[in-house]
């Protein structure tokens, strides 16, 4: 159970952190703010999950020790969320592929017998609804935009698709189906085609990450590791 909560928390934190790298660099102010808001929601969700995990772990664990003092191999996030931002379209597509998974997952967890977990899921799903709609619309807009934006979305899809199985591997069948249906629907409207015969990379849940997570955590954790216990 603790390992699962950490997995949920790590997904939210890593994607939230990645999105926050856009703050101040977005293509236009409104969308920069939108992605920063999504980053804030995800990091907030991760805090709720880490706080709960730290209660379960005990032994002095805190939300901060879990985020700042675990090694990359101890992180249980999926490979998709740690991938580099790339261009704006790739960031949007990564968000869509993740939100399309997080939405049915939190729907299911809202009914979980564990009261604390279901409360976090119910709280979060209201936010995820916005993320999913926003990213769905932008995937369509960009893929249907100019030949340049369309080409960029196709490239992004080729780059990200190999990491999608890692996310679905351990999921309930109902979630896989809902994810697949949504992806099919949105891609149909966007005119995107799922790449064929792709070699999938997995291992996020077992702590086998791509090099990108190491670099990200090195930067994110450096202050706590250099000055342990440092506070604002």
């Amino acid at each position: 159970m603790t390992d699962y909560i950490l997995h949920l928390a790590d997904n939210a934190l890593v994607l939230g952190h990645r999105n926050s790298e856009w703050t101040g660099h977005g293509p236009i102010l409104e969308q920069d703010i939108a992605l920063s808001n999504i980053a804030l929601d995800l990091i907030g969700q991760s805090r709720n999950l880490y706080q709960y995990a730290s209660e379960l772990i005990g032994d002095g664990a805190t939300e901060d020790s879990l985020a700042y003092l675990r090694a990359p191999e101890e992180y249980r996030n999926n490979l998709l969320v740690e991938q580099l931002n790339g261009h704006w379209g790739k960031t949007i597509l990564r968000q869509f592929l993740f939100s399309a998974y997080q939405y049915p997952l939190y729907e299911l967890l809202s009914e979980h017998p564990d009261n604390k977990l279901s409360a976090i899921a119910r709280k979060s799903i209201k936010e995820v609804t916005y993320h999913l709609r926003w990213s769905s619309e932008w995937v369509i807009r960009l893929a249907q935009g100019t030949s340049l934006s369309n080409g960029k979305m196709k490239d992004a899809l080729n780059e990200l698709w190999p990491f999608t199985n890692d996310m679905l591997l351990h999921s309930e069948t109902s979630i896989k189906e809902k994810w697949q249906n949504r992806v099919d629907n949105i891609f149909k409207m966007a005119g995107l085609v799922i790449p064929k015969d792709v070699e999938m990379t997995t291992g996020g849940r077992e702590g086998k990450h791509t090099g990108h997570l190491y670099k990200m955590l090195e930067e994110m954790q450096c202050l706590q590791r250099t000055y342990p216990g440092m506070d604002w």
Partner: protein
Amino acid sequence: LIVIVSVSEGSATATIMTEKQTILSLLYAVPDPEVPVLTVNDLGIIRDINIISPGKSVEITITPTYSGCPAMDTISMNIKMMLLKNGYRDVIITRVLSPAWTTDWMTESGKDKLKAYGIAPPGKTMQVNADVLFAEPAKVKCPQCNSLNTTLVSEFGSTACKALYKCRDCDEPFDYFKCH
């Protein structure tokens, strides 16, 4: 806020009720750090007041607006400071997530204050649907000129709880405290 009285009957109940009212009136004076025209009570985030020891020890239960609302830590501290200043020795702030906060809990006077401040108040909550794309945005009245001829600029505004609109009649951009 519906204050649930946990103590049994008689005069003890009445005393506790009065003390809860007093605490509530103190909380009326604790502003939200991001939208200072609203108090924490206007926002509807105070979920319970539990007197542990009359005049000395109290537990305040609050709920966050959004998971990542950065104001929650400041709000907790401000509530604590207010009660400590008013003679309490022990103030416990408990956070609950369930039931999830909704703008339906915002007070009517809070909505009036928002409008006067230049932020369009939330309407009645509508279920945000992830399946309806490119939907017509909610009709929001301009807080400056009351025109309904307004347009959504972005569903994500300067804080998690706001969207950005623009009035087509008076040309004024404005924040809309979105339904949630």
